[in-house]
């Protein structure tokens, strides 16, 4: 059961880290909400 719970925790940690890591590469689709930089008006 410890392995199962640790896998669930790992899944949540990956989910939390994903938008931050993707943001580093400019892949912001997974980010929640919007920001001034995600909308280009030019």
């Amino acid at each position, binding site marked *: *059961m410890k*392995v*199962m719970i*640790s*896998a*669930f925790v*790992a*899944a*949540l940690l*990956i*989910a*939390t880290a*994903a*938008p931050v890591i993707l943001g580093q590469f400019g*892949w912001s*689709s*997974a980010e*929640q909400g919007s920001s001034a930089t995600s909308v*280009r008006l*030019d």
Partner: protein
Amino acid sequence: MNKKLLGAAFLVLVTLSLNHAWAQESPGVDRSATGGAQTLEDIMARQQKLKVDDAFRSENLGDPANAAPITDHLGTRGGVSLSDTYRSIRYNEFDANTQARGPAADVLIQDGGMSWYKLREGPIITYGGGALLGFIALLVVFYLIRGKIMIDGGPSGTTIQRFKAIERFGHWLLAGSFIALGITGLITLMGRSFLIPVMGPDAFATLAAGSKWVHNNISWSFMLGLVMTFFMWVAHNIPDKLDWQWLKAGGGIFTNSHPSAKKFNAGQKIVFWTVMVLGFSVSLSGLSLLFPFQMPMFAETFSVINSVFGTELATALTPHEEMQYANIWHSIVAFVMMLAIIAHIYIGTVGMEGAFDAMGSGQVDVEWARQHHDLWVAEVEARQGKGDVS
């Protein structure tokens, strides 16, 4: 003689179907009073939700070759009239040129949105949700008839290691994220129909935003779990002759027998390949939805299908159409996967005594293992005899 008659009939049919004059004589709406524009009958038919063939508008986009010169009384601007231009915008046939940058800036009207929405809110929810509920009901009936599959003679009390910690970690990473994806996916798909009437739009907006965040981000765990389990178990899941014997015996589920199996029996192999193939497909369509402008996939897919099967699927798709196809495909594949996984969860928990231990503690009762995976137990014991305990 018969061949000649058939040939003649075929020729007549082809001639009639290709004959434009004949086609015009088929029942249609006389639009001469409006100069070819829509009539009151068209409007009334739409209001009655009847299907209206709007080819008279969608294909009436102007022909510069036949247009009156601009110097004439009713001369057109550049060969096509403004009405022609607006119709071409309406049906996304207009070659737009815009200074606005960014993806899809030159798509002025995307007509496929409504048919996508109707398909998503209609058949996808009805058949997908119906299949889930029906399958669960079927499993309940099966359980009531068949009952739990018990270990013949009861557990021996001695255990054998079935799965190592890393295998169980990969399984639960995949399983946990899949369940989260399934629940949040169903909330996203069905919430508008079933949750808003119950909890109201404000509470649902919060739930939907949370579901979207979880769905988008936990997908990476799912993909990691999929890759891990594929590489850990693919060697054990190659189909062989033994699987046919197992399938012919129905896995012993109806006959209370125990057909021979190695580490994975044919039923488990079916689940494995279902999860791998559909999991790969649902991941691709999910990535396409996460990054619609970077990873369009359906135009390429349709192009391959056209070249193989000679079909004429559209290969010039707007980003919106790509997302619509990806969304529908994502939903269908996810529903099929959910059905397979519900069956897997059933047999791994309430359906069979001792099965959950394989993924719970990793240690299964030897008697359970002998009854369901006799050849695997023999392999392990042979290895242990040689001093190899893994």
